[in-house]
């Protein structure tokens, strides 16, 4: 360096260096007393004000609300457990449930919780439906005495606990009565519940929440004095976990082993989401069941998981319900990878193999495969496999709206899609027979239609399971769509709180390991 540069350096750089050095050393923090505090990070941060009507309509929004508001029943690792209700009974003749409520519960403001609050909640949601509960199912609610409540259902509804009793947050009558616009009700009273935590503060901009333990909680004071939710970008969560500035967060599959080596606990959710090959079963040649079965034989789902998901997924079951689910039927036809069988099936349908591709009446068998950019690798893999089996594939990646529109209008042959909600079988109706581009919209098999409707109203659990087993067999034989894989999701935490994944997900099936009961002894 010349003298000139050396002259210039001190003038400009020294002040800069001083600033860096000063900033780099954290100032001594104010003398706050030692509190047991637990910090949880995600990349979005802001999930709305945690009152039932103001939280955003996604899983993490519900989770933040569920630390404050409670439901009649709740779930832990093995299934339903009592929460505000201690016992319950189903009365088949009346199609009603009787719930015996706890008599030692108080709202955060000290008021006693009674049957009156539950009746109020179900009445109130008739006028102001809670975003996640179909309010048409509970016809009326009646208080039998101060701590007994009877709910009359408008129809038989098998997933009543999963979809309603374990989801609907109970509201305090003395606060919500007279609130006309619950979505805009964001006063401090709007977050008075019966749960183990109180909201101390939240910031939309910083995407942060501060919860303090409710000391008079009926199951005992929570084990952590305060919980903080903070925003950290997806890429930085592993680093933040390692440096200890956060205690828990979701992590990408790539860093699982690194996190384990660093001494963090890594947990994975029972799979809750599936990617599937949507098939246009309305038009030739895909309207043939045998043709669709040939497709299933031609695609190696295990290899697809290894190559496109780097092993961080489970291979799909053609019955759609994942093998990890309690509803899974192990006898579902599996279509193990067998390209020779695929070729045999196609030859039976009158196709002839010529120059590597099947032809019929002089025309090459060619199908169009659509996918959004998210599924590009999956699409390419399927193209390659189907072409090996002699089916020419025109693979196109399009933006989401275009794919949706084309699929909705049946203007496609094959498309790669995904959806969640795999915990509670009531989703079968939504994604097999209902309308919408994420549904197979397959209504031509009467048996399947009846089975799907019947399982929704079958109140006996064993008989319902039998119906669901049967659905998987029929669905897998008909293959109106083919489930390709179920991705695995991971969380890492430092073990100070024993986080766990809830059986069938929190409330309606949220695959996040932040069950409020992990924070209660």
């Amino acid at each position, binding site marked *: 360096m010349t003298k000139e540069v050396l002259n210039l350096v001190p003038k400009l750089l020294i002040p800069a260096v001083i600033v860096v050095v000063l*900033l780099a050393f954290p100032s001594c923090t*104010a003398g706050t007393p030692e509190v047991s505090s637990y910090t949880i990070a995600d990349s979005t941060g*802001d999930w709305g004000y945690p009152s039932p009507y103001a939280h955003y309509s996604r899983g993490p929004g519900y989770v933040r609300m569920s630390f404050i508001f409670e439901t009649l029943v709740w779930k832990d690792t093995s299934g339903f457990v009592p929460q505000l209700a201690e016992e319950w009974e189903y009365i088949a003749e009346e199609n009603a449930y009787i719930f015996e409520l706890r008599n030692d519960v108080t709202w955060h403001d000290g008021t006693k919780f009674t049957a009156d609050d539950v009746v109020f909640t179900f009445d109130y949601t008739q006028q102001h439906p809670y975003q996640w509960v179909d309010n048409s199912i509970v016809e009326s609610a009646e208080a039998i005495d101060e701590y007994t409540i009877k709910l009359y259902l408008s129809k038989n509804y098998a997933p009543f606990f999963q979809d309603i009793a374990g989801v609907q947050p109970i509201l305090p009558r003395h606060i919500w009565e007279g609130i006309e616009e619950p979505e805009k009700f964001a006063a401090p009273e709007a977050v008075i519940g019966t749960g183990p935590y109180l909201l101390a503060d939240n910031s939309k901009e910083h995407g942060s929440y501060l919860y303090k333990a409710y000391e008079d909680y009926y199951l005992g004071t929570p084990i952590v004095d305060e919980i903080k939710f*903070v925003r*950290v970008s997806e890429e930085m969560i592993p680093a933040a976990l390692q440096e200890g500035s956060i205690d828990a967060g979701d992590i990408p599959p790539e860093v699982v082993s690194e996190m384990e080596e660093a001494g963090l606990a890594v947990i994975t959710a029972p799979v809750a989401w599936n990617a599937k090959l949507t098939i246009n079963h309305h038009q030739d040649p895909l309207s043939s069941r045998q043709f669709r079965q040939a497709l299933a034989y031609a695609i190696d789902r295990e290899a697809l998981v290894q190559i496109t998901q780097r092993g961080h997924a489970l291979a799909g079951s053609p019955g759609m319900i994942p093998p990890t689910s309690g509803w899974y039927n192990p006898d579902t036809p599996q279509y193990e990878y067998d390209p020779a069988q695929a070729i045999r099936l196609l030859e039976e349908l009158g196709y002839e193999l010529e120059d590597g591709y099947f032809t019929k009446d002089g025309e090459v068998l060619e199908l169009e495969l659509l996918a959004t950019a998210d599924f590009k690798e999956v699409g390419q893999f399927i193209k390659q496999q189907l072409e090996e089996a002699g089916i020419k594939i025109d693979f196109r990646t399009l933006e989401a709206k275009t794919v949706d529109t084309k699929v909705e209008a049946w203007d496609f042959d094959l498309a790669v899609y995904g959806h969640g909600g795999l915990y509670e079988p009531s989703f079968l109706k939504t994604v097999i027979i209902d309308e919408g581009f994420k549904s197979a919209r397959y209504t031509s098999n009467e048996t399947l239609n009846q089975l799907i409707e019947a399982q929704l109203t079958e109140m006996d659990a064993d008989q319902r399971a039998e119906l669901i087993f049967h659905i998987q067999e029929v669905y897998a034989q008909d293959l109106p769509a083919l489930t390709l894989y179920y991705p695995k999701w991971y969380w890492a935490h430092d073990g100070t709180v024993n986080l766990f994944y809830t059986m069938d997900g929190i409330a309606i099936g949220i695959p996040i390991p932040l069950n409020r009961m992990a924070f209660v002894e």
Partner: protein
Amino acid sequence: MFSKRNLITYAIAFVFILLLNFLLPRMMPGDPLMAIYGDEALIAMTPELEAELVERFALDQPLWQQLGAYFVALFQGELGYSYYYNAPVLSVILGRLPWTLLLVGTSLLLSTMLGIVLGIESGWRRGSRTDRTLLAGLMSLNGFPDFFLGMLLLIAFGVVLGVFPLAGALTPYSGLSGLALLWDVLRHLFLPVAALTLAHLGSSYLLTRNTMITVLKEPYMLTAKAKGLSPRLLKYRHAGRNSMLPVVTQTGIWMGRVVTGTLFVELVFAYPGIGYLTYEALLARDYPIIQGVFLMVAISVLAANFLIDLSYPKLDPRVSYAY
């Protein structure tokens, strides 16, 4: 000084921007309801609830009615109501604005000042080793996008050395106050400001240096030298001031991009500014927020232009005679 014609031009531009601002987000693909509710879970949405939501967000009205409502509300100073955030657009934006202003303001000031000083010094010593070192160094920095510099800085100083925080604008609920809080904010600010400053330093430096070289050849510089002025006065008062015009223009343009220019850096550092908000709103297809942000961009571009128009005659009085 400021002609009527000029004002009309601004007005036309403004109305045109409003129209575009209304139409563009609506041409975005995707059903907004679908986008709000997401697909992590299939939610028990009854037709009644869906109808209520559609009505609440006025998604069922024809486009021209939505346009009418938009203009009426705008002239009442209302930017609309965000259905994702469940809050008025203005309050959402105003909550984020101070952080973006802090980030952009600091980096704009630093990169411009530093760029001008280095440019003047470099131009003055044209051809010397200082000049060549600075030129090569800053030119290569100039080639990096700001978010990439941000990632490098974050990995080096945040992850590996662990001397700077990894995300956010402050440590939430740290119990800090007063000076300690200020310190915390500054520590969070440092890396994103460094990324933006480094990424933009190059262009103001290059502009100043090039103009400096041209200015130094002007006859008045020879006169000034002949008067026996000190090199310092020559450098800064005579040559330097005249080299600032293009940089001022450029800074103005950059100021107009206050809102969007920091989008990527804010994402990298999870910094709660307007850029981050724009990103979230795009993902959620939150039309009212998108419109609100774009309107702000438009206003700040127009305002920056206006300020440049006003400041030019001050820096160079000859400009006033050009009209």
